[in-house]
């Protein structure tokens, strides 16, 4: 029987973020929070393997109380249990402090019910750091497989898994002992369309809430702002470039405009050889 653990994060939907032109700050109104898309695929992959091998899936997240809805969504997809690690004392955590909190919680879960495989999304779309998954793996001393695109085999009897991951040059198959941790690309599995009873169960589901004191007594020096070596020094909006020249290219002006543009490219440093001009 497989015991898979999935670490997820609730994030603002960055595809729809807007900036207040006056203050330069994020306009939060109208920005829905969603389960980090990569994490959703990680959950889907865990569910696929639970269906194949039998067993169960525990999902964990660190976040504000509202993150309950992200855990419910995992239950909807087929996870069995959700744990929300939530406490004001955790706020201000960077990736190092977050990986500490999650790793300690996972140790606790593992004590009671040994874990075979840990799934994360490859990165969260709000921070894009891709550090928490690797950080947790290191803290637990588990082999780490990042950018996983396909799980070929999970062999619980012999205690190994074959996982395909993506690298710059090619894909590679990793054979790893279990337990192991992986971070997942979207290709890893398609999000299932839940049956109605599962959806209804998820809407009624209340995840466990763990605090900074119970059931894991956290070292206060390693959590929240205190446990975070990095801090945000300042924020701003990206620098706007000077706009270039606009040329109308329609009807009779089309030919001229195209000539003009090609000339400009030729004149520009290193542009000429690209379009057949002299070096």
């Amino acid at each position, binding site marked *: 029987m497989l015991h898979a653990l999935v670490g997820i994060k609730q994030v603002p*939907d960055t*595809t*729809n973020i807007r900036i207040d032109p006056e203050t330069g700050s994020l306009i939060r109104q*109208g*920005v*829905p929070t969603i389960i980090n898309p990569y994490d959703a695929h990680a959950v889907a992959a865990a569910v696929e393997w639970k269906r194949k091998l039998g067993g169960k899936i525990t999902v964990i997240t660190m976040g504000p109380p509202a993150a309950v809805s992200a855990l419910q969504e995992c239950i909807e997809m087929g996870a069995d249990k959700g744990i929300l690690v939530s406490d004001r004392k955790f706020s201000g955590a960077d990736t190092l402090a977050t990986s500490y909190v999650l790793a300690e919680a996972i140790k606790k879960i593992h004590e009671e019910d040994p874990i075979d495989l840990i799934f994360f999304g490859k990165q969260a779309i709000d921070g894009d750091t891709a550090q928490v998954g690797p950080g947790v793996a290191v803290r637990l001393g588990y082999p780490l497989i990042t950018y996983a695109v396909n799980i070929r085999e999970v062999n619980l009897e012999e205690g190994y898994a074959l996982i395909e991951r993506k690298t710059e040059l090619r894909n590679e198959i990793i054979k790893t002992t279990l337990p192991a941790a992986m971070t997942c690309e979207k290709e890893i599995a*398609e999000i299932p*369309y839940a049956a109605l009873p599962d959806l209804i169960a998820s809407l009624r589901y209340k995840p466990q809430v763990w605090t900074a004191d119970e059931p894991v007594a956290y070292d206060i020096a390693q959590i929240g702002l205190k446990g975070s070596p990095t801090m945000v020094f300042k924020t701003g909006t990206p620098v706007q470039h000077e706009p270039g020249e606009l040329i109308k290219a329609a009807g009779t002006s089309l030919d001229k405009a195209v000539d003009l543009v090609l000339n400009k490219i030729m004149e520009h440093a290193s542009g000429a050889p690209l379009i057949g001009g002299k070096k």
Partner: protein
Amino acid sequence: MSKQTKIPQEELPEVYIDDILMSIKYFTDEQEFHLAIKDTDTCVRCVDKPCINFCPVGAYRLQEGGTVQIAVQSCIECGTCRVLCPPNNVSWKYPRGGFGVAYKFG
């Protein structure tokens, strides 16, 4: 009945609808399309092809050979095409639960 007839195009500003659609949030269903042209030849025979114009997100696009293609992922489920397609050639249903347009403000 309305005496209204065709309005000359030059009285209207040109609008780049794709940019405007960037303001809309969608949960795109990659596994199932909720709209389809029932019969491609019917579109070829349809002279006016008003769908190219009346769709408020410009999802109906004229293709070479006079066929019409639907950019289903930009559909906002208003129902205009279902009601207005002259040969009633659009197979129209709502996207699966949770998919499709998700207005942030409404």
